[in-house]
């Protein structure tokens, strides 16, 4: 099967190399979770894949086309950020309908599609609410509805539930899994929670410490027992954290 997304030797430097060299391929309909120690460039990698930020080296191909970080792009990539990034002065419906304008839909079609995806995200009946009048979980649902409404080739999610409490987080994980099963979108999902990744992803990519590369790529197809997988990943992440600290701190003797 042709790859939906191809990441080839992507790297990014911010004074120091943060993302070393990362390569992987994603098939259509895969749900990929990116894991790794803090500061290893998970979010940066996602932003490069989305064409929000240019890479220092390497190339990203979406449906065989190179992704170039340029405002005037023609890609259909939905992004759910850490914050909802809804416009507070627009109702949830208008927030979703706004991003449908560049697709060339007329107003009735935009409203119909906004309603359709808000319903899919479990927001039926809240279409006319302003973002400030609903809970954080519901705002993130609206952001997901917005990302899905453009019927994206690729859906990028950057720790979308980081700001939610544990209970809401669990509910939203199930919801995303359900939405993925219903829409079969290709998803790249950044998280720092191993439990979250194991619960929702079909493919887990563990990045190493800075400068990051892929430490491990795991198919989460049920062949491995979940508890053991979580334990293994936790061990891996701790090793990477220690390696990071070893390179970040000056040697013991140098400290006075």
């Amino acid at each position, binding site marked *: 099967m042709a790859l939906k997304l191809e990441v080839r030797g992507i790297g990014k430097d911010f004074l120091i190399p943060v993302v070393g060299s990362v390569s992987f391929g994603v098939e259509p309909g895969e749900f990929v979770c990116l894991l790794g120690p803090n500061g290893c460039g998970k979010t940066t990698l996602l932003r490069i894949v989305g064409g929000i930020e240019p890479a220092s080296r390497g190339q990203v191909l979406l449906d065989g086309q190179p992704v170039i970080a340029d405002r005037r792009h023609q890609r259909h990539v939905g992004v759910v950020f850490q914050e909802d*990034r809804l416009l507070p002065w627009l109702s949830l419906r208008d927030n979703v309908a706004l991003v449908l304008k560049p697709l060339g839909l007329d107003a009735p079609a935009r409203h119909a599609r906004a309603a359709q995806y808000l319903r899919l995200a479990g927001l039926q009946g809240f279409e006319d609410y302003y973002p400030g009048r609903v809970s954080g979980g519901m705002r993130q649902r609206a952001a997901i509805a917005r990302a899905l409404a453009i019927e994206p080739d690729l859906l990028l999610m950057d720790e979308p539930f980081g700001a939610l409490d544990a209970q809401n987080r669990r509910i939203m994980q199930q919801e995303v899994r359900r939405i993925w099963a219903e829409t079969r979108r290709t998803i790249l999902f950044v998280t720092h929670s191993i439990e979250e990744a194991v619960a929702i992803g079909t493919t887990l990519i563990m990045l190493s410490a800075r400068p990051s590369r892929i430490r491990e790529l795991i198919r989460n197809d049920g062949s491995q027992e979940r508890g053991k997988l979580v334990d293994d990943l936790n061990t891996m992440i701790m090793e990477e954290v220690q390696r990071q600290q070893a390179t970040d701190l000056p040697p013991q003797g140098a400290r006075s």
Partner: protein
Amino acid sequence: MSARDWAGRLHLPTLAVLVVVLVGWTLLSRRYGAYVLPAPGSIVTGFAEIVRSGEIWTHAVASLSRIAVGFGLAIVLSLLMGLGAFASRTARGIVTDLLAILNSTSVFVWIVVSLIWFGLSNWAPIFTTFMITLPVVASNLVEGVAAVDRRLLEMGDVYRLSEYEKFTSIVIPSTLPYLVAGMKVGFGLALKVSVVAEIFGVTSGIGYVMNYSREILATQMVFVWALVMILIMVATDKLLFDTLNRRLARWR
């Protein structure tokens, strides 16, 4: 409505203080005479008089139309400056510096300069109003433009919104509260400043008529016109700016 609600609405404690002030005022006016401090009663009569003669409208309209022109031009130029500040960082720097200079210039400088440039005409108060309100409105607007959430603009780029769509759906709505706040302060200032400029060279307007009343020793009329100014101020605040703010805040 309960008694407590009415008490809240009428600002009962404020009213009590007002009564004390009025009593003190009356006593002082008896002590020093009507030329120095006219009695509260004579101000009420004077007010009724200018309402009946229609004089209140002549002078209020004269002052307000000068403000409308000067303040209106200041708003237009502020909008252009805001647009410039949004378009380029260099322009924002220049505009901010210019406004800092204008902000620290005294009202009196503009009054004197406008008398030299425009002579005894309508343009003196108009120009003074313009120069004084411009930095207030414009610096608010520039601040608003600088405060536009870049993360929302980035979202707009991700979803391929055009520059026009980003401007109308993101930049304008987030800047409007700053504009209204600037206009509210600016209008108050315009009213205070234009009246001062009207002392010189024009033959209508609240400032002119106040100064004229002083010259003919009608001190109570000075107080009457001061009251007119206060009423205009309160009315525009309550009717115009509070309504605008309520409309802007409906999504909060």
